[in-house]
């Protein structure tokens, strides 16, 4: 691709300092994501996938290296709120605001951050709720929604900011099996529309159907990457093989 990468990660290191010692969470991670790409990150738990994702919108800080998102370097001088408004994030636990209805969840940041009028924000919210397939749930509180519906509201909430990049941090792992599909369908639609997406997920089906690239991380490093078909059928490294065999066993 001749285009400039929209996310550029260069030799990023990250340490977690705990009372028991120091954990090297990211080791010299370098990664470039181009506009329109759908990148799926897989790997065993504790491999640093979520940490990497959270570094991209500075929910975590990193110790060395450089991350440039949409032309803005994430250092102390960066206006991080501006970067975050361009980078949508979907969490494993949905993190919907429980004191707001689905509609208010989607409208709040539009009004506070994007300074849209109440009417304009509500219009966008209704469109997005229709897009994720739950237009009738606008006035429901998160506690009145199923897990799948909550996650779809969370996706709509992130999309309402009209981000250039969407980050998904294990969006389906807190869901009951029968709800996973409704969330993945929304994500597939999004991928088809050309959204740049970084997805931490173990949904092989989604990776096969939508991912332009799959990245395998282990112990804080990027071990292997490539297109999903070759990576899943013909892994080159032992670590990837071991990981795949564990997943496929059950």
């Amino acid at each position: 691709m001749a285009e400039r990468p929209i996310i550029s990660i260069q030799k990023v290191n990250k340490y977690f300092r705990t009372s028991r010692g120091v954990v090297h969470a990211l080791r010299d991670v370098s990664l470039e994501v181009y506009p329109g790409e759908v990148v799926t990150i897989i790997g065993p738990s504790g491999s640093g996938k979520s940490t990497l994702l959270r570094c991209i919108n500075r929910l975590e800080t990193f110790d060395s290296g450089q991350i440039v998102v949409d032309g803005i370097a994430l250092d102390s001088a960066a206006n991080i709120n501006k970067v975050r408004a361009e980078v949508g994030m979907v969490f494993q636990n949905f993190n919907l605001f429980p004191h707001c209805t689905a509609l208010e969840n989607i409208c709040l940041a539009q009004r506070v951050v994007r300074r849209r009028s109440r009417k304009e924000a509500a219009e966008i919210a209704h469109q997005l709720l229709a897009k994720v397939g739950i237009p009738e749930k606008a006035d429901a509180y998160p506690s009145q929604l199923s897990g799948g519906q909550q996650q779809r509201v969370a996706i709509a909430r992130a999309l309402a900011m009209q981000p250039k990049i969407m980050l998904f941090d294990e969006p389906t792992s807190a869901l009951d099996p029968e709800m996973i599909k409704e969330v993945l369908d929304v994500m597939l639609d999004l991928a088809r529309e050309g959204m740049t997406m970084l997805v931490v997920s173990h949904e092989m089906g989604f990776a096969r159907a939508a991912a332009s690239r799959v990245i395998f991380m282990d112990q804080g490093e990027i071990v292997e990457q490539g297109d999903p078909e070759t990576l899943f059928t013909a892994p080159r490294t032992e670590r990837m093989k071991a990981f795949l065999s564990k997943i496929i066993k059950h």
Partner: protein
Amino acid sequence: MSASFHQREIAAIPVLEQIALRVARLPWWAIVIVAGLAVVFYSFFTSPLYRRALIFITDDPRLTTTRFANVTYDVRAADGSIRRVEGVLIGQAGDLINIETKRQVTIRVPRADIATLSCTPPAEGDDCPVGSTVTLLRAQISGALIFEDLGRFRLVTDDGERQEVLKFSVQIENVVRTPENCRPDPEGRCRVLLPLKPEEAANTISGTVLEADGTGFLIERSPGEILQIRQSDIVSVVRYAPAECALNNLAGCDSGIFLTLFVAIIAFALAVVIGLVAGLMRISENPILFNAATVYVEVLRGVPLLVTLLFVNFALYTWLRDEFPRLAPTLQLLIGGLAAIVAIMQAWNRRAALRTEPAAFWQPIITAAIMGTALIAVVGLFAANSDLPPISRGILGLAICYGAYLAELFRAGIQSIGRGQMEAARSLGMSYLQAMRYIILPQAFRVVLPPLGNEFIAMLKDTALLTVIALPEMTQRARIFAADTFRVFEPYITIGALYLCMTLLLSVLVRAVERRLALPR
């Protein structure tokens, strides 16, 4: 159709039976409380003593306007001469008025200060022997000025006596200060000479000479006595000053149940502000903010409320009055400097943003300027009004104590909201303060509302402690009533019932608000 039938059926039950059904559903403790309150309230209607206690405690405004006013009357005596009576109005029954005259046992007057002097029996020359009765007009008074406000000077004379001089009795335009224009100073570095107005009755001193020597006289003024005068004998009212709120003049304050509620509401509002700020500081990652808040919370929680109240009312109050006004300019300068440093540091950190995003560059600087100005104004306000009245001292004491309790409450409430909420809000591009304002605090408020209501109820009850600083709230009024009448049951049962009514009403109110704010489950 069926609904209306249903309603008609319920309406058909006799009213009394409905009430009986409701009562039967109440828990037994509620019945005991309601029955107890009913007995007390019945007593208010039937027993005159209970009714008097209720009126006295909840405050009869008539008590505050006539009693304890400072008055000066010109009164016609039996022989037709007119004499001046000055004192405190302490009672009135029909035409008869009781006035307690000023009580000052001895006063030392230097000869240099005396304008005219006369004694009985008349003495040779212009000297008055020990034991004679003297009337003198004082021309001036001098000494070290230690305090001054709009109405009075307080000074220490060369004989070491503290004297208070009201400004209206002084020829204020002829006051001499050495050094020139000096301010009151507890160390005695500001000397003043106050020329007194000869026509002012306060400057005529009469009494018995106890000592007389070359330098001056020690005079025993007539000790305070209660004069009974007839209203019809009053020729003119020279001065009638309704009682002012002061420690030695309690009835001047609005008192009773209103004072209790007023103090509780104002102190709690202040405590919520203090608690919120301190609570946010307690979760701050800035070590200075965190440690400052922790010291405040731990100290105030570890010291009994009563001790804090006494400290604020006596120690802190005296310091604020005597020392703080001198320190204030330095403090203001310090705050201004600090705000400037913060603004400059912020500007340096964000200098890159100046061209791309001027708003992000200016916002922290404007915030620092506003905060600095506000703090300087608060210090100035405190310095200008450093002689706090008792009610302010009470409110301040309660507020800083409960601020510490509420800080922990708010901290726990905010921390009970999962980290994910803050992350979700920040990931949408909200700033920390926006996330707090729109996401965290609305949720934390629902969590802390029930304990917050409990704290308010606790504070309402703790206003009773203000009786130790002689604030005439309900408890103090009850104690005064008990002392006046030698009745102890009536006043204390009355305030008990009143406190109970207020707290029960409040807990019902808190529960109602809680239900309204509850989210669907």
